[in-house]
C-alpha cells in the first residue's frame, strides 16, 4: 500500500464469515469492544458477537493487539446489517437486521460487553419488510432506527413505552431498492441504492424524498450499487457514499448535480478499497480515525486512516 508507513494491519482470523463489524462507544482508552455479525457456514448458525479489542498489551511486544470474544447472541437468520448507538449510554442499544426480514434491538452493558436484554420486530411481509432488510441505522442516542430493503420500503422503528414501534415511512413497491441508509440529523436521513443513487429524506416533509441524486455515470462497467453512506458530522450537507468496485464519491446537497468522485473504476487514481474485496462494507467510526473493514474472506482487519482530507475538499 502506498502509505505503508502509517498503516498497521492486524489480522484476526475468525474461521467464519464476518458480515459486519462495528465499534462500540469507548468506555476506557485501552479496552474497547467491537460487535460483529458472524455466520458459521459449516453449522449454518449466525450470531452477534461482542469482542474486546486490546490494542496495547502489557508484557507483550508492542504491536500485538488481541481480539477476544466476550459475549454471543444467537440469531435465527443470517445478519444483513448491524449498527450500534454512537453515544455512550447504559445500556447501550445495538440494532441488527436479518435476511429473513426481522429487526432486533440488543441492549449491551458497555462495561462488561454482555447482552442484557433484547427487543425485536418479527419478519412480516405485510407490516414490515418483504424479504431481506439490506441496511439500517440507529440515531445517535439509539432511540430510533431506520431500515431499508430491496423491497423498496423505508421503515422507522423506535423505542416506545411498551416496546418497539414500527412505522412505514415510504413504500416504493419494488420500483426502487435501497441498499444503504444513514441518519444525518434527528429528522433527516439519506438512503442509497442502484446506479449510485442517493435520496435525502426529511421526516418533517412527508410524501417521499426531498432530493435525489441519480448517478449513472459508470453505466456498464460496474454494478453501481451504494454500499454505505456517511454524512459529515458538522456539515450535514455533505454525504460520502461508497459503492461497488471501490467507488467513493461525495455528494453535496448544495451542488446536487455535481458529485465529486474520490476513487473508483474509470477514475484515474487507484481505488483505495481493494477491488478484490469489493468493499462489502466500509464503515467509519467517529472521528474518522479508525476504519474497520470487512471482506467476506472471513477476516476482519483494522486499519488506521485519516479521511479528513477527503472531507476538506469542499469547506
Amino acid at each position, binding site marked *: 500500500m502506498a502509505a505503508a508507513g502509517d498503516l498497521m494491519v492486524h489480522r484476526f482470523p475468525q474461521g467464519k*464469515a464476518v458480515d459486519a463489524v462495528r465499534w462500540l462507544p469507548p468506555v476506557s482508552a485501552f479496552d474497547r469492544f467491537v460487535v460483529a455479525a458472524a*455466520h458459521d*457456514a*459449516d453449522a*449454518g448458525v*449466525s450470531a452477534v458477537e461482542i469482542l474486546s479489542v486490546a490494542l496495547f498489551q502489557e508484557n507483550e511486544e508492542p504491536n500485538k493487539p488481541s481480539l477476544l470474544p466476550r459475549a454471543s447472541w444467537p440469531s435465527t*437468520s*443470517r445478519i444483513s446489517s448491524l449498527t450500534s448507538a454512537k453515544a455512550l449510554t447504559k445500556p447501550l442499544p445495538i440494532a441488527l437486521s436479518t*435476511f*429473513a426480514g426481522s429487526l432486533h434491538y440488543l441492549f449491551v452493558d458497555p462495561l462488561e460487553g454482555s447482552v442484557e436484554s433484547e427487543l425485536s420486530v418479527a419478519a412480516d*411481509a405485510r407490516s414490515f419488510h*418483504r424479504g431481506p432488510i439490506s441496511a439500517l441505522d440507529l440515531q445517535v442516542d439509539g432511540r430510533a432506527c431506520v431500515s431499508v430493503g430491496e*423491497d423498496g*420500503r423505508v421503515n422507522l422503528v423506535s423505542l416506545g413505552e411498551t416496546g418497539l414501534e414500527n412505522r412505514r415511512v415510504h*413504500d416504493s*413497491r*419494488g420500483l426502487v431498492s435501497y441498499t444503504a441508509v444513514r441518519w444525518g440529523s434527528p429528522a433527516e436521513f439519506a438512503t442509497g441504492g442502484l446506479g449510485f443513487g442517493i435520496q435525502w429524506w426529511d421526516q418533517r416533509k412527508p410524501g417521499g424524498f426531498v432530493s435525489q441524486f441519480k448517478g449513472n455515470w459508470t453505466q456498464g462497467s460496474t454494478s453501481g450499487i451504494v454500499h454505505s453512506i456517511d454524512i459529515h458530522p458538522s456539515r450535514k450537507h455533505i454525504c460520502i457514499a461508497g459503492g461497488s468496485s471501490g467507488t467513493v464519491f461525495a455528494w453535496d446537497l448544495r451542488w446536487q448535480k455535481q458529485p465529486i468522485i474520490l476513487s473508483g473504476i474509470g477514475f484515474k487514481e487507484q481505488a483505495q478499497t481493494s477491488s478484490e474485496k469489493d468493499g462489502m462494507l466500509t464503515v467509519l467510526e467517529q472521528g474518522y480515525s479508525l476504519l474497520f473493514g470487512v471482506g*467476506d474472506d472471513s477476516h476482519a482487519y483494522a486499519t488506521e486512516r485519516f479521511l479528513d482530507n477527503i472531507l476538506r475538499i469542499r469547506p
Partner: protein
Amino acid sequence: MKGVSPFQRRIPLASLAAASPGRVGEPWGRFGEMEKAVATLGEGAACCDWNYCGQRIAVGYADGGISVHDSPEPGSSSSFTRSSKWRAHESGIKNVIWVPPEYGDAIACVCVDGKMSLWEEVAEDSQTPTWKLCKTFESNAQVLDLQFGVSLTSLKLKSSSNIPIIPKANTTFASKVAAYSDGSVKVHELLDPLALNKWQLQAEFQNVTDSVSRFGRPSCISASIAWSPRTSESQLLRFVLGFNTDLPQFNSSKIWEFDEVHQRWLPVAELALPGDKGDRVHAVAWAPNIGRPYELIAVATCKGIAIWHLGLTPDFDGRLSTEKVALLSGHDHEVWQLEWDMSGMTLASTGADGMVRIWQSNLNGVWHEQAILDCNATQRNSKQT
C-alpha cells in the same frame, strides 16, 4: 552454476499420484462426518430436480402435487425448507425439470398420464411470490422426457405488435426438446423471453438416422435427452437422445444438431458400436466442456455405462467422429441417472441397485469406479425406536 544436481532427475511421483484426480476419492477410507441431511421430502415424493445453482429443489409427488424447497440464506450450506406446495395435476408426477434461470424460476412437470405443464414463481408488486400455471401442453402421445436448452443464436422473433422495437440479434434463446411415447421428438422455441406461455413448435422428427424409411409406431418405455452444455464459444444447438423401445432403430443415442442453413435438425453422430445399436438406452449425460479437445458423453444401456469422446470438428459430410473410451459396469440393474460434475472430470450414476457410483479417469485416461455410496444400508440412527 554448478553441474547437474543429483536431485534434478527425481521428483516424488508417488506423492503426486497421491493427489491425482483419480485419487480424489482415495481418502475415503475415512469418511467421518462427510454427510448431512439437508432436506426432508413429503410422503409420496416421486421425482426431484435441483435448479442451476443447487439452492432450490423441486419435488413431484405421486398424488400430482409439487413442492419447492429452498435454501434461503446466502452462502450457507444450511438445510432446505419447503417454501411452497400445491396440487398441479390429477395424476401422479413422473418428472420435474427446472427451466434455465434466464427465464425466471420456473419448472416443467411431466405426469404419468403423459401431460406436461409449466409453472412459474411470480410476485406482483409487494405480494409474496406464488407459483402460477403458465401453460399446459397437450399431445396424443405421452411425454417421456423433456429438457431445456439455451443457446446463443440469432433470434427470429416475430413481433406480434406493430411497435417498431427491434430485438437485438445474438441473444440467448431457449428451446425445449421433448420425446414422446410414439417415438417422436418435438422441439419448441420460446417466443417471448419474459412470457413462458408463448411457445412455438420448431421441429418434429424421429430418433433415426435413416430419414427415408418409414418405421412402425414403436412402444416406448422411456427416453433420455441431454443438451450440450453451454459454452461461451459454441453457438450450436445440439443434444443427444436415446430411447428405450422395442424398435431397435430408435434406441441408439444420436447427436442432433440444428442446421442453421436449412433450418432443420440433423443427426451428426451415433453413439453405439455396430453390434450395440439396438441396445435400449436408460440414461445419457453430456459433460460440461471446459476446454477439452473433445466432448465427453456418458450413455447407459443394459450393457453398462459407456464413455464416449465426440470430436469437435465435423468431417466433409458433416459428421462428428466418435470414440468409445470405456465401458463401465457396476450397476447390475437399470441405470436411473447420470450426472457430470462442474468440470466434467467426475461422473455420478444411480441405478436400480440403490447405489450411487462415482467414476473418474486417472492420469492415464483409464476410467474406473472411485467410490460407492450405498443408499440401501439399513440405518443405525433410524427414527424407529
